[in-house]
């Protein structure tokens, strides 16, 4: 292995600093006891004042609750639909409509959000006119929109996981007389389980984070957390938003740490199982 030269290595260090300084500054100034946010008031800081104000803010808490519900439901929907689409694309070979499905699962990845948002809203309005459903806009329409754009990401994750191992296991089970559904549940599903977990987390994050599409398809009284934050920070920096950001960074990094430890544990267990199986065969 050639070691990277001095130039790329310096660039990497600078780039990582660039990526992390803004997040660190959010965290530091969340403890600053000054409305000016970015001017450190050394005499009265650090303080937990903004965390207190945050937890007393019913609007933010309500929006966070709504966002969590939408994110959890739409992530589940996206995993189901994305898995079906991923299996179709990876395992069914060529069929009529494959190109269309492939296009519809890759286009959302690059589609500008304003276009997706506008088109979904116009769809919901037209549907309501023609069949009277969905009535008005709110949590339901936001959830449907989020399932649609995040299932594309799950499809990519599942498809690439399926492409990573060959079909011989599934074929062997079929040859031994297992029905397709049983093959899927007993063999394919356990194999792609890690992809489903990361796909769910990805879909949850995308939904939790989405502002533009939600703004289009939300109705009165259904403001998600990003919508509330956006209307707040449009007027300027605000210290309780810093506190909120710090809590979210903390939550996410804990979650990722737990997930990576769990995945390492799983792969170690799988390696041990393989060793045992090999030893038993000797």
């Amino acid at each position, binding site marked *: 292995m050639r070691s*990277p030269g001095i130039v790329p290595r310096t660039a990497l260090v600078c780039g990582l600093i660039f990526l992390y300084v803004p997040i660190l500054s959010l965290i530091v100034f969340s403890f600053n006891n000054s409305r000016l946010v970015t001017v450190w008031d050394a005499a009265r800081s650090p303080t937990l004042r903004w965390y207190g104000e945050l937890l007393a803010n019913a609007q933010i808490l309500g929006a966070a609750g709504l966002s969590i519900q939408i994110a959890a439901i739409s992530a589940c929907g996206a995993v189901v639909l994305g898995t079906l689409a991923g299996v179709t694309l990876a395992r069914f070979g060529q069929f009529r409509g494959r190109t269309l499905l492939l296009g519809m699962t890759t286009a959302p990845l690059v589609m500008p959000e304003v276009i997706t948002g506008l088109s979904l809203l116009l769809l919901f309005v037209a549907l309501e006119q023609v069949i009277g459903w969905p009535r008005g806009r709110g949590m339901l329409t936001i959830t449907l929109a989020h399932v649609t754009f995040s299932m594309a990401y799950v499809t990519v994750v599942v498809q690439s996981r399926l492409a990573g191992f060959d079909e011989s296991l599934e074929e062997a089970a079929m040859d031994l007389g297992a029905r397709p559904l049983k093959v899927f549940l007993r063999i394919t599903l356990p194999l792609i389980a890690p992809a489903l977990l990361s796909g769910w987390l990805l879909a949850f994050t995308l939904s939790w984070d989405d502002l533009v599409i939600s703004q289009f398809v939300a109705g009165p009284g259904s403001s998600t957390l990003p919508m509330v934050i956006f209307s707040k920070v449009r007027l300027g920096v605000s210290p309780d938003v810093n506190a909120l950001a710090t809590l979210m960074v903390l939550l996410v990094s804990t979650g990722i740490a737990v997930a990576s430890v769990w995945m390492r544990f799983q792969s170690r267990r799988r390696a041990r199982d393989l060793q045992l199986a090999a030893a038993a065969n000797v």
Partner: protein
Amino acid sequence: MSGSPGKRIVAGVPSLWLLVLFAIPFLIVLKISFSEVRLAMPPYSPLLENGRLQPHLSNYAFLFTDPLYVRSLLYSLKVAAVSTLLCILIGYPMAYAIARSGATARNALLMMIVLPFWTSFLLRVYAWMGLLKNDGVVNNVLMYLGLIHRPLVLLNTDFAVYIGIVYSYLPFMILPLYANLEKHDVTLLEAAADLGAHPFAVFRRITLPLSLPGIAAGSLLVFIPAVGEYIIPSLLGRSDQLMIGRVLSDEFFENRDWPVASAVAILMLLLLVVPIMLLQRVERRTLEAAK
């Protein structure tokens, strides 16, 4: 595909979902872009009136006569192009360094690149407001160091938008580049070096040409969403020059002109997405032919 009912359901359900919630909506946008704005709910004229097709081309004519739209479209293309270029210049050496590190370091570094992506996009853009404003962190540090004596205007400039886009989209450039660079055959580079090639020549003659597909993939992932970007220019950008995504949203929410907003969307689609998808197809064909 064999026509077994199980397979048909597996393939049919997601296809139907995307057809209804992704493909058909574009047809509706297309349809409304040909109607007239009305003071009603929904605020546009029906395309079929008295049994006759009544397409109005006035919305498109309007987009090309009022300089606001063309100018903001060109401005968006410029911002996206500059940001994509900056992402390549910053992301390439980073991806290169990661691809040439040891296995353990590589995983940790990749994790560090992806981690910010999992924290809120909106809050990461918001962080730059605090860094760039007149009494923000950057100005305070520069003044403390004595490099400047009065604060620089950084927020609400093109510069701030470039920073915001590069900051938010850098992982999308680094990951495809890394995936490409990591696959390169190191023995090729060693052979060239053994034959006396200068490291820069090795890079220019071997690594760079081999990594062009990675650059193309990363550029697509950065450029297209950047053209339609809404949050970053709203929070960090100028108020005298809007980007096209903001124009679309204002047309819709402020002016309640759904037909013109739809026409802007169709124009963006034609200008951006369609040519790029065609390009990708050609690329894939040539790749398959090369195999």
